[in-house]
């Protein structure tokens, strides 16, 4: 399968803008530091599933760095590193197995947990946070990953229909 990469990038940039401007308003007030979905990251995982690991790596790296740049307060790089790495790993696993929606659910869930954990350990490494991992995991990482899973499921059908080119060789058409 192939993806329309130009459209993917355009969509990812739109998602990045939405992530920074619309999502904060949709999250209820008490939850604003618990639910922080990364829409670009979900897009990277779609790319990993449909277009292969190398493309996913590049897209993840680029979008992650962009996201870091926009949030720049202390560091540039955590999301660039995390999203690049997880994009590649997700692509690697997706190439070994058939890419079904059940498999995709696991990728989004585990990828989300891994990404936020990597970010936490980077900030811990530079002594920018002194929270315990268990607390962060319960407070922010787990709720965010579950929310990301729901958003990914919502996006699944539109992405398949509009961004994935049906391949001619395998006869795998767009969903009915």
């Amino acid at each position, binding site marked *: 399968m192939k993806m329309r990469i130009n459209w993917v990038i355009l969509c990812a940039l739109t998602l990045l803008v939405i992530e*920074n401007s619309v999502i*904060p308003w949709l999250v209820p007030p008490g939850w604003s530091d618990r639910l922080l979905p990364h829409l670009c990251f979900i897009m990277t995982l779609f790319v990993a599933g449909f277009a292969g690991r190398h493309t996913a790596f590049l897209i993840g790296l680029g979008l992650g760095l962009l996201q870091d740049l*926009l*949030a720049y*307060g202390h560091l540039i790089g955590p999301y660039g590193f995390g999203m690049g790495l997880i994009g590649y790993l997700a692509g690697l696993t997706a190439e070994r197995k058939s890419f079904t929606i059940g498999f995709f659910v696991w990728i989004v869930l585990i990828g989300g947990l891994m990404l936020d954990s990597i970010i936490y350990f980077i900030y811990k490494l530079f002594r920018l946070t002194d929270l315990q991992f268990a607390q962060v995991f319960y407070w922010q990482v787990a709720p965010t990953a579950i929310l990301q899973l729901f958003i990914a499921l919502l996006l699944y059908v539109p992405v398949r229909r509009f961004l994935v080119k049906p391949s001619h060789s395998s006869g795998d058409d767009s969903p009915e």
Partner: protein
Amino acid sequence: MSGIFRLMRNKRLFILMIGLILFIALMGFTLGRTRLTWPEKFINDAFGTVQGALYRPVGAVADFFRDLDRLSDVYKENEQLRQTVAQYTQDQIKFNLLEADNKRLQEELNFTEHQKNMDNYRYLIAQVVGSTSNPYEKTITINLGSRDGVKPQMAVRSVDGLVGLVSKVKNFTSTVTLVTDLDPNSSRGTPVSATFLGKPDSFGIIEYDDETGTLQMTKIDERDKPDVGDKVITSGLGSLFPKGIIVGTVKSSQVGDFGLTYTAIIEPAAKFDHLREVFIVVVPEVEEP
């Protein structure tokens, strides 16, 4: 030795290690930098502008629905406001007299022009155009930049109280670090000195405790025991930071780390999420002789 070579032959691991080193170098390099290069400024400005076009209308709609929810409280709130206004008119008369007195005394004591204008802060109204989804960088973006005279370390307040500090300035937008990101114990943040309203000699430093998620005022002298309900305002000591911005009210107090000082837990006056409009406080500049 051969083990190392076999490791090197594994291309993926090798690239991962190089990537890790490069990224740690990048993060170390960008840590604690205040100046930005022009590509960073350009990208931030571009995204800031587009985000603003979405953030503000969405915020207006969200606020409208939230206001509908609060419609039943309006009567009570109106009653409260009426009392406050009555109080305010009283205070205004007193304030005018005191101000006139103060001016006369300053005149008699030959204050310099700079000393006279020290407390005349200018406020720049800025619209919030975005926040971030990074849990460890609590920042918001506002739509004023170096073109409008914004400089790093300026105080930012909302109608309710202190919100944060300007951390990175771009041409048309700037990034504000929230008060909840100020922690002098770790390698980040600028200490904000504070005092209690009504106890001008008291002194403390505003900190944020990540673990309990509360705002604190630490290093308070023994003689100024904080009482519950005391108002905490910025003190302006250190002259960089303006004085008289409300930070919050004391919720509880305890003896500090070594038993020599007090620590007060503060209920912040400003809300830090769902912000729409903030003010940047511009302190009059000292003219170089």
